[in-house]
């Protein structure tokens, strides 16, 4: 009985050592990625999505209107958009960034798209941006694509290192 117990204890010990080693090696193999980003970023996923990619969408014909281009809104009104249609904005939702204009843009977008993302533009930069739109990094996986977006408004127009690492981690 004693021998059996000793053998069982030894097996448990070996199992614990092996598990610890595996967990440790997993974390050592993960590239340097901001923990905050790694654990907070989820890859959204959709099947058979229709995707609208729209850039520099603020109203340019009327300087007093600080929202989304009326021409674009008219176009979206004419489209068949359902819950599976994704809106991808490649930045500059508003002309002058402030809490009101960004919130207004958000409400305009959400009238059309349940799922949408914005690769932040220089005109969107404001302290309230993240509170309104969430993280500037985004990822979406569809049947055919992995779509990634980040803040490229840096001094060399490349994402910050943690976003670069995150992009490489996801595409790997």
């Amino acid at each position: 009985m004693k021998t059996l117990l000793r053998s069982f204890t030894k097996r448990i010990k070996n199992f614990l050592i092996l598990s610890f080693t595996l967990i440790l090696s997993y974390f050592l193999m993960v590239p340097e990625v901001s923990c905050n980003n790694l654990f907070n970023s989820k890859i959204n996923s959709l099947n058979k999505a229709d995707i609208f990619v729209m850039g520099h969408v603020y109203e340019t014909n009327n300087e007093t209107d600080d929202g989304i281009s009326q021409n674009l809104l008219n176009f979206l009104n004419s489209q068949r958009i359902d819950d599976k249609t994704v809106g991808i904005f490649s930045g500059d939702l508003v002309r002058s960034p402030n809490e009101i204009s960004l919130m207004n843009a958000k409400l305009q977008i959400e009238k059309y798209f349940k799922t949408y993302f914005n690769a932040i533009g220089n005109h969107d930069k404001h302290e309230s941006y993240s509170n309104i739109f969430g993280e500037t990094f985004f990822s979406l996986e569809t049947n055919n694509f992995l779509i990634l977006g980040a803040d490229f408004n840096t001094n060399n127009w490349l994402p910050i290192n943690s976003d670069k690492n995150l992009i490489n981690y996801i595409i790997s």
Partner: protein
Amino acid sequence: MLISHPIFWLEAVDYAVQPNNIPDKVIPVEDPFEWIELGNKNLIVISGDSGKWGQKFYYEEVSRNITVISNGLGGYSNDSIIKIMEDENRFTFERVKINN
């Protein structure tokens, strides 16, 4: 697919496309794709800082597996967006004029 606002790949196309704006402090890097570990995967980059000066839709394959696109609205009659339609096995890219 990678979405950015700035046309960070200007150097890769020898400035063949004009961005809406290049801030004074910005120096675009010579090899803008050096940091991406693509392997054999294909990359399509879509950048939106375009259109303000009437720039046309721009599309170029800068290497075997990297394609760049710039497109944005500017209040012009030929303003367009990109519509991607996909089902389980295939997808189509379409440039759609919004003012028709």
